[in-house]
């Protein structure tokens, strides 16, 4: 397992907290009518993307689903510009044309942000194809929601990735519900990580509420893929505290279930570890909390003050 430095703990805590505060603020702006359309929050799942982040090379590529704000923050993108995309302003990462579900940053090798369930899986496989074609040692991390694991193109992509030994790491974020349908009502066979077995793709299941478990699995899987052995699947067991999207009151699950997961809150786990290992004091953590809150507050202010795109932008970016 990757040896974690003191700074790594602080980095993990800061990023996870930043994602949480960002999403809470996004929910607030949504309620105020500043953010429209669909808005899928990542609260509860922070350990997944931050755990993976700890094992990533900056030239590796990432592609994910529409629940993407946390992924962008973890990729080191500017929360101000992410939030400005949510508010549909010209400073947003997609200049206000993409919105919550469709955000990209080519310079950061972040390839979206895809709104169609499952579509990002062949795409991520194609990005991995390019790494291999170009003779690069990089890999593409392709995130998949549990809902997409019943989608045909996912298996077509698995087949191609295994057939051509492509450097792609598939990360199934199993947050237990595809919109309002629980995994056991959608998937025949609950071990989603085994769904690559028929193609010879190894897989494993990981506790996604615990960032340390995620790092351990991601590190091992990342090495396997980078060494040219072909694809690998990690199924990360996680949970979203909020509904599927802002318009979902999540009545399909009990309060007890939610409270139960909150007992193992991913951010609290890291914080407890930091205090236990005496990496930082309570005061120092408080300072991170305060700074993060401030940063996100500024992001929201930036995003609501950024101008709407010019009318002339309607017709740009259709063709290069």
């Amino acid at each position, binding site marked *: 397992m990757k040896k974690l430095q003191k700074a790594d703990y602080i980095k993990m805590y800061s990023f996870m907290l930043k994602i949480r505060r960002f999403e809470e603020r996004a929910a607030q702006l949504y309620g105020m009518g500043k953010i429209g359309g669909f808005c899928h929050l990542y609260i509860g799942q922070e350990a997944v993307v931050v755990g993976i982040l700890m094992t990533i090379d900056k030239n590796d590529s990432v592609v994910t689903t529409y629940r993407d704000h946390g992924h962008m923050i973890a990729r080191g993108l500017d929360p101000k510009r992410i939030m400005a995309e949510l508010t549909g302003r010209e400073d947003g990462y997609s200049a206000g044309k993409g919105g919550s579900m469709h955000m*990209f940053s*080519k310079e950061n090798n972040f390839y979206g942000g895809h709104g169609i369930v499952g579509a990002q899986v*062949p*795409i991520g496989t194609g*990005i991995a*194809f*390019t790494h291999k074609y170009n003779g690069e040692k990089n890999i593409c991390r392709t995130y998949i929601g549990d809902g997409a694991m019943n989608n045909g193109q996912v*298996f077509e*992509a698995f087949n191609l990735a295994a057939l051509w030994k492509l450097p792609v790491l598939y990360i199934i974020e199993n947050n237990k519900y595809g919109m309002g349908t629980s995994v056991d009502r959608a998937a025949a066979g609950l071990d989603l990580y085994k769904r690559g077995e028929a193609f010879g793709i190894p897989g494993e299941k990981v506790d996604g509420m615990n960032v340390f478990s995620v790092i351990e699995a991601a590190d091992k899987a990342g090495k396997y893929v980078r060494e040219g052995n072909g694809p690998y699947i990690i199924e990360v067991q996680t949970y979203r505290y909020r509904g599927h999207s802002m318009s979902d009151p999540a009545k399909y699950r009990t309060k007890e279930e939610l409270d139960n997961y909150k007992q193992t809150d991913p951010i609290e786990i890291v914080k407890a570890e930091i205090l236990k290992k005496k990496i930082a004091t309570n005061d120092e953590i408080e300072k991170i909390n305060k700074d993060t809150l401030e940063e996100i507050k500024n992001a929201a202010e930036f995003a609501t003050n950024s101008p709407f795109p010019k009318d002339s932008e309607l017709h740009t970016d259709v063709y*290069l």
Partner: protein
Amino acid sequence: MSTEILMPALSPTMTEGNLSKWLIKKGDTIKAGDLIAEIETDKATMEVEAVDEGVVLDLLFKEGEAKIPVNKAIAIIGDPNEKVEVKKEAPIEKVIEEKKIEKNIETKIENKKADIIDTPSPKIEEDRNLSSEEITMRQALRDTMAEEMRKDNKVFILGEEVAEYQGAYKVTQGLLEEFGKERVLDTPISEHGFTGLAVGAAFKGLRPILEFMTFNFSMQAIDQIINSAAKTLYMSGGQINCPIVFRGPNGAAAQVAAQHSQDFSSWYSQVPGLKVIAPSTPYNAKGLLRSAISDPNPVIFLENEILYGLKGPVNNDINFSIPIGKANIEKEGKDLTIVTYSIMLQKSKEAALRLKEEYNLDAEIIDLQTLRPLDTETILNSVKKTNRLITVEESWPIGSVGSEIANIVQRDAFDYLDSPVIKVNSADVPMPYSLSLEKLYLPQVDDIINAAKKVSYIK
């Protein structure tokens, strides 16, 4: 009694073949199912089995003889005891009969070819770099891909049967040998998956040429084409482009019925973010495919199976290209305008000849070449000159490319029109299988002539 073994049609569009090898010799006794010959078509070399039984009395062609028409007798089998009698009794008659059959076949083939007139357009004649040699559309496409692959190693090709099989329609012949399996990739029958993969590769900077065995199968991948390839540049605020060419045969082939004979030109032309091209000759196929491969946007390149064998001169300059979005005035005229594209250009040209001969109507023919973006300027200028317009295309009538042209022309050249615009399309039904119904379904030369008469108020 003797039986003739006829040159078989090994594909729906085959009209002739080469006898590459006999697997039997005179005097052999053959049973149904025995292999008798190797026949080479423009697509493949195949072994042919006997369907009748008997002793080989005669082989009518030598190995290596080429261009033997389909349905022509290539061997005679029968009972050897009757052999002498047959030969003695009716040798002359037999020959005459054969000649008759041959002639019938030739006439039939000529009729078939008459649908595809192959005279170079004036623009081609003006081309000083025109090759003296004529090549097929298939070869023009192949050569252009190879030329572009030599120039830029980010260009690669993938699709079903494109590598080892040399292409289901032989359009990728020889590419595997020259560029290797890293750049010429056979895919599983998995359109949704490999299209998404190719789109991802294009996002990341490669320049895939994706062959759909036919565009009918692009429906399996339509989400990746529309939602991913066409929209991502816009959704990413201009950051991520998708330099990919989706190519393959589109529209009707010959009697492959509803699921394998659909024209998707208007479907794709509706989508912002896509460019749509439909070549009609080897010449413009070369120029347009080069532009498509070099274009930084997703391009739908609609070929036509029946046109693959069409021969014509080309410009062999490896940098020769025809700009996307430019129509070609295939033939100038003053009495009416025919706007068309792809295979219907050939039928329109034939109609124009007959319109001149039979009705003294001088039709101007515009070959769109690109369907999106549409060259409205060339269309409008023509209509302003001729004051009459018909559109001719293979797609279904509702919401077709012609529908949009009719809309543009009534909006921007209303005062120039002397008659309503008339569209000639395929029938508004799924493609039937039967030869007779298929012919009814597709626009024919007579339909074009009737439309031209109608806009010219000729009864």
